[in-house]
């Protein structure tokens, strides 16, 4: 019977060997693509005639927002893998993805805010997209807070965080629709959102003006570079987490051994 890749990697030792092989290549690819992307963004892409150089923020802002969402998808998929397939590395993956996804979400919020100052004249606008990214950030905080509060029982913390992640992911479409509204013209679906209520005309639409290729290509290269960076960091964080758990279990064994050594000689094991 052939095993799938995820089944093979269920063995942590095999995963460590595999990731040690994959890590340098991923890191190198991320470095190369990000270097090209940033060069394109700063020296090749044209300066916007209205926004000037502030348009360059987009090359960090958009990939960060995308990775914030993808990070949550990784957490949710890992949670599903933990609760349904009981994959031993799923909890490690979910835990490792949390701070990275939260950091990118935070980066998206900060760059959006900095971009908002010259664009809108204020650091924060209750724009529909900004708001739903902010709520995504809160969901990350909730997951990390739950893990932290249960840190004395990590197996339980992983399972409960997985329950919360899956519940949140099920409610996430409702959050998005309630904030941003939903419009699928060819199905005749038109649901008002919180923001569309106040300013229906100024909402950024997905079918809005197409981005010019001279900006689109650098943006896509940066998005790819940031995605590679995400997976490099995620893999590294997973390796660190596995090593940390090994150290913890070695420590626990050492403590147990020294406790045994200190017991009264001749006393049968387990009598205390």
């Amino acid at each position, binding site marked *: 019977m052939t095993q799938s890749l995820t089944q093979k990697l269920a063995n942590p030792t095999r995963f460590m060997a595999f990731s040690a092989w994959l890590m340098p290549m991923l890191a190198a690819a991320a470095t190369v693509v990000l270097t090209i992307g940033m060069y394109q963004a700063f020296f090749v892409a044209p300066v916007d005639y209205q926004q000037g150089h502030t348009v360059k923020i987009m090359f960090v802002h958009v990939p960060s927002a995308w990775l914030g969402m993808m990070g949550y998808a990784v957490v949710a998929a890992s949670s599903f893998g933990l609760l349904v397939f009981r994959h031993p590395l799923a909890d490690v993956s979910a835990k490792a993805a949390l701070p990275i996804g939260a950091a990118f979400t935070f980066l998206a919020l900060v760059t959006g805010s900095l971009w908002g100052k010259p664009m809108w004249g204020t650091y924060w606008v209750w724009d529909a997209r900004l708001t739903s990214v902010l709520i995504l950030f809160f969901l990350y905080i909730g997951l990390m807070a*739950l893990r932290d509060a249960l840190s004395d029982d990590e197996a339980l913390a992983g399972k409960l965080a997985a329950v919360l992640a899956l519940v949140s992911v099920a409610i996430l479409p409702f959050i998005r629709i*309630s904030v941003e509204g939903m419009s699928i013209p060819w199905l005749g679906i038109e649901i008002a959102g919180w923001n569309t209520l106040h300013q229906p005309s100024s909402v950024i639409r997905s079918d809005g003006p197409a981005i010019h290729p001279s900006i689109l290509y650098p943006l896509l290269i940066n998005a790819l570079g940031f995605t590679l960076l995400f997976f490099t960091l995620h893999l590294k964080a997973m390796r660190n987490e596995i090593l940390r758990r090994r150290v913890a279990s070695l420590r626990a064994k050492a403590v147990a051994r020294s406790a045994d050594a200190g017991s009264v000689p001749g006393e049968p094991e387990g009598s205390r």
Partner: protein
Amino acid sequence: MSAFRALLGRELQLAWRDGGALGTAFGFFLIVVTLFPLGIGPDLKLLGRIAPGSLWIALLLAALLSLGRMFARDAEDGSLEALVAGPLPLEALVTAKALAHWLTTGVPLALGAPVLGLLLNLDVGTMPILLATLLIGTPAISFIGAIGAALTLRARRGGLLIAVLILPLYVPTLLYGIMAIAAVVTPPGDAASSLTMLAAITLFTMVIGAFGAAAAIRYQLQ
């Protein structure tokens, strides 16, 4: 079904005999509503405009207070394990508990909200739609809250944690409640569709709350 009814009856009876919880929640509700004019200023026009949103937020926070005890008391004295070992599926148990929480907290607070609205210069014509949104929306508070209560059963600093975990999940309920009210206050609006969305979200949370909280409890009793 009879086990479900018996459990629901037990929860209601416990809440009734220990009436202090509802009183405390009401006191909190009243104080938070009072804080809005104190913080913003006694401008009646402004207060009237923010009244529905303020009442919704104050009610959310007041209902949140009592959530932590939904399973904690039964977990402490061991009756939760007895209930889990009983004939009732854990999902039905959670449903009974959350339903009891709604009946003893959500409904009374919702009924009191229009009265407290008088403090905020709430327009009398807005009261029916406010009450409707609160009654349709508050079950979601109890059922999402059940997930939070179940998840924090063993956690340190459960009280604060539960708010951080579940308040973001209340966003759709809050927004559609507010949108339905706004549609009535400023006429060119569609209150019916917002109410429908509100009801849909409540029904959805009833399902996901029952299964999510049951899963969380199951993992902790293993």
